[in-house]
């Protein structure tokens, strides 16, 4: 079997790996790099639990081959916290009870981060549009939307 060498960045750090051609980014992150914050849900691109950022844009890591990633930059949920300080979005999710079982949370937060990075003042409907990419089976979205809204309002002040 042929291995493929790929060099890309994960959370700011260079990684240099030999991967199987049929290895997904999700498998690489969880099994090789031990970044288990990224979750495997449906594995077919429907649920969004495995969302990470590729060059700042949200992608399903279960649909991405690691072999495709030469020279790209990946951001996972592990990189959001600065030292002991949570990212404002993480903080807001905690404060609003927007986390119940927590399985969708990494994907939700990264999708929200990508939205705020490209549009610092999204409307409520922009937020709903963005996070409708991710499925949550517990809290029913309301608290998640509110949590993201408070971050927008804080940044406005």
């Amino acid at each position, binding site marked *: 079997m042929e291995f493929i060498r790929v060099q890309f960045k994960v959370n700011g750090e260079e990684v240099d790996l030999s991967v199987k051609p049929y290895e997904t980014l999700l498998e690489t992150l969880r099994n090789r790099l031990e970044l288990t914050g990224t979750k495997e849900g449906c*594995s*077919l691109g429907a649920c969004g639990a495995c969302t990470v950022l590729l060059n700042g844009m*949200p992608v399903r890591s*279960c649909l991405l*081959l690691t072999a495709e990633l030469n020279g790209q930059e990946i951001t996972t949920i592990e990189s959001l916290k600065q030292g002991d300080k949570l990212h404002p979005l993480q903080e807001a999710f905690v404060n609003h009870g927007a986390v119940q079982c927590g399985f969708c949370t990494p994907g939700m937060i990264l999708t929200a981060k990508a939205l705020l990075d490209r549009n610092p003042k999204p409307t409520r409907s922009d937020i709903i549009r963005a996070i409708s990419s991710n499925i949550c089976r517990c809290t029913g979205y309301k608290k998640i939307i509110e949590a993201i809204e408070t971050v927008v309002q804080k940044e406005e002040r």
Partner: protein
Amino acid sequence: MKLPKFLYFRPKTIEKALATFTAYDGKAVYLAGGTDLIPCMKLGLKKPTAVIDLKGIEELKNVRFEGDKILIGSLVTLFELSKTPMIKEKFPALFEALVSTSCETLQMRGTIGGNILQDTRCLFYNQSEFWRKAKGPCVKTGGERCHVIGASECFSNYMSDITPALITLGASLKLVGIEGERDILLKDIFTENGASPLSLKPGEILYQISIPNEPMKGGYEKLRLRGSIDYPLLGIALSGSIEKVRIAVGGIGPAPKIWEGKLEEVPLSTQKLSQETKAIANTIMDPLYRKHMIPVLSQRLAKRVFGN
């Protein structure tokens, strides 16, 4: 869920991609965004020896004007295209289809070419290998009988949102293959046979989509269960003017259905189109309801676009 084993290639030119396809004797598939292909491979519906990633070919990623046409490279993502201002202004049917496809995250990855060339879907086809083995093969997987109605034909559904919209705009495709290039109207690539829905020759690459640069009023209506990520259980695109309006119906059966006429004829003609449409119980929604919604959504759309 694991992917089956395959080799991976990322050519930088069309010629190299075609050469790789030839080298693997047809046991290769082209990869664009992967939002359709990767799930299909995970379910064992496609088992190529080689995956040829087209994303290394830069010339497939442009949108440009040439004469009286707009040329869209096949690897332009749905998200990128929906953010191109002239699309919203000139071709509202296409714009509405773009933003109603799947969800934002998948629009950022999914390409227009991949969306057009997606495989047809069925409740009895898009299942795990284990499930399909237990049930036995259907017409699309090499068996003799359809699991839904026992027929020897396949009625799987072609579920692109984009294609009906592009058809109403008179779009055509440029295909590059081993034997050379050819242009074909988008509406003519369908075989009407769900088991093998597209008439592309082995190895052909969709190079670009060409739309006549004539702004057209229009819109897109989509029937689905979830407001967020969902395939169309019926999709109606409409473009044109009061004198000449074109409607394309997607989501039912292996090829879009097309009607053209005057605006005032829409109610009766779409009624007739609905009666002629064959829908079977191969999605999560009742087939009669889906058929019934063809004239309903068409008239709703006509009203929204042209007023009363």
